[in-house]
């Protein structure tokens, strides 16, 4: 009980630390916040040229929306992915990078990780808002689906936070986590239907391999985001159940791992 009271009591701290992350991120850069939009746009442009123009990848049009724009198809999966990968990388450093603070002041340490995720959630929201405008401009009336997308973002946040909590303590005890994660993220990125549609995977692999592919929570998230924003239809019940369960389990696991190891943080850092 005292634990929950403490976490609830640190709401102001969470807000302040998030603001610190956000303000610190683009200080002293001329474009400032512009960078948080330019980055995904650049990735989008590169992938569009490579995969759509050169490799002629042509995912089927949205059903029932009928939208057929590769860049938008890509962004529906890329933005949620960026949210995960940024939070994982940032979360990993959230304890190591604040070693001085942890050694000198007591406060619930989870807040550092949560503030990092919150700052990326904020960027994610802005990027999504821009994507919605673009979708509407191309005739996809996404507005009625936005509440559902927001709920999905919340579910993904639980997933992302759980992973970030685990990585943050892991990186304190094993510093090569940070090198390992670079590789993990690459494999995971290509193992998720972001630059290609899920149907392509269905054509080429089957059986237990496909089951393994589907077990990837990010594949399910990407599918759900794409259903809601690109196809304009509800994701399947199985899909939603899966992401909710996996996210809840990941968050609980993350919190437990964090609790287990946070006691000696000030010494190990």
């Amino acid at each position, binding site marked *: 009980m005292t634990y929950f009271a403490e976490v609830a009591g640190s709401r102001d701290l969470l807000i302040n630390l998030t603001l610190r992350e956000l*303000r610190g991120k683009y200080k002293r850069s001329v474009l400032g916040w512009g960078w948080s939009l330019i980055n995904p746009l650049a990735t989008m442009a590169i992938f569009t040229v490579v995969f759509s123009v050169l490799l002629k990848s042509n995912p089927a049009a949205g059903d029932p929306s009928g939208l057929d724009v590769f860049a938008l198809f890509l962004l529906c999966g890329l933005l949620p992915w960026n949210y995960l990968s940024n939070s994982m990388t940032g979360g990993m450093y959230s304890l190591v990078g604040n070693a001085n603070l942890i050694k000198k*002041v007591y406060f619930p340490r989870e807040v550092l990780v949560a503030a990092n995720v919150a700052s990326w959630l904020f960027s994610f929201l802005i990027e999504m808002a821009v994507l919605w405008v673009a979708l509407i401009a191309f005739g996809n009336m996404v507005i009625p689906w936005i509440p559902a997308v927001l709920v999905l973002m919340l579910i993904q946040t639980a997933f992302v936070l759980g992973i970030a909590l685990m990585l943050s303590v892991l990186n304190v005890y094993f510093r*090569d986590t940070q090198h390992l994660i670079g590789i993990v993220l690459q494999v995971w990125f290509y193992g998720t239907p972001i630059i290609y549609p899920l149907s392509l995977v269905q054509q080429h692999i089957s059986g237990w391999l496909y089951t393994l592919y589907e077990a990837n929570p990010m594949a399910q998230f990407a599918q759900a985001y794409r259903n809601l924003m690109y196809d304009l239809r509800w994701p399947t019940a199985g899909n939603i159940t899966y992401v909710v369960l996996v996210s809840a389990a990941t968050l609980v696991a993350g919190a437990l791992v964090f609790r287990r190891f946070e006691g000696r943080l000030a010494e190990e850092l």
Partner: protein
Amino acid sequence: MDPRAPQADRTDSDGRPVIVVDGVTKRFRLYDERNQSLKAAVMRGRRARYEEFLALDDISLTVPQGATIGLIGENGSGKSTLLKCMARILRPDAGTISVDGKVSALLELGAGFHPELSGRENVYLNGAILGLSSKELDSRFDSIVEFAGLSRFIDSPVKNYSSGMYVRLGFSVAINVSPDILLVDEVLAVGDEQFQTKCAEKFADLREDGKTIVLVSHALGTVRTMCEQAVWLEHGKVRAIGTAGDVVDDYVSEMHQGRAEGESHGGRWGSGEAVIERVELIGKEGRPTGHIATGDDVTIRLHYRADEPIPRPVFGVGIHTMGGVHVTGPNTHEAKVPIEKIDGTGHVDLHVSRVLLLPGTYDISVALTDTEIVHTFDFRQRAMRFDVGPGTPHETFGGVTSLGGEWHWHPDRD
């Protein structure tokens, strides 16, 4: 003194215990090899091998409300570890610490300041880290800035602050958290003199308001004057606990008794035509020593060697406290002691018939210069360290030196 049941008795507080330390043990891991890699762990089948170091060994003590308690002891005795356990930064391996009230720990000022953010943003950030809500901060913001004396600079990034400004702002936020219990680790030794005075006043205010203060310090004078009680830790155990003056005296009389004498701690420079080869402190028994008492008759002896004739040289001695306070700096020139010429070896004595230094540890620096004190032949910074133990006059209220004065009582006759 029973270290297991130490109750700081104080008449002017209600004595309700606010910090209860019960059988606290803390071990640190000293890794054989600091190899924090996954590969090393897999190869070994486990994480790096380590030895355990017992930083706190079954410590029990109680701090009553409103008390000011000093933790003293040598480096590595566990006093900072104990303080960090009280602050919940470290978690004890065994035993419990219960703390009743809002705690503010002044372990490092301005920890968590973001250099790119303005002073204003950092006040809110640091305040939140210390547990203040935004509303509380709104109402205290002006007094925080005013106390730090930074109204003009509050909107510039703190990376442009001088280290003094940085520390002042950090202290100001920490102190305005209005804690019930303040844990302080050596931070009083920062900032300029004016700011130190301000801090001392603030601490006095807090004490008067009945706040509890636990202070870790090497500045024994500070402990003597500020604290009623002191706890002497040695190798992670409570060695003594009691009235600050008594504990500090016991500590000083024992501290570093086995230390090598004449040991050099500081730098040395000079042209070297003549050098001070050795510095000795001759105690009242007439033998070199590193340990004297207030009131002793002592001689500081400077053994010199001149490789070529040096006409009219000047010998000087400087005495500093461990905290760097310059106590005195006599020399043969100002004392108008003519030294015609040195050539070969010899020694110069500074005889003090009654040392007025109060208990503590002091450093002697020595210098050998030309007549005008412009050219330095040899300068040995902190050439020797010595301890002063309690003697006569005996003053428990701290300070660096006694005045050696005499009291006289003259009642008016009606």
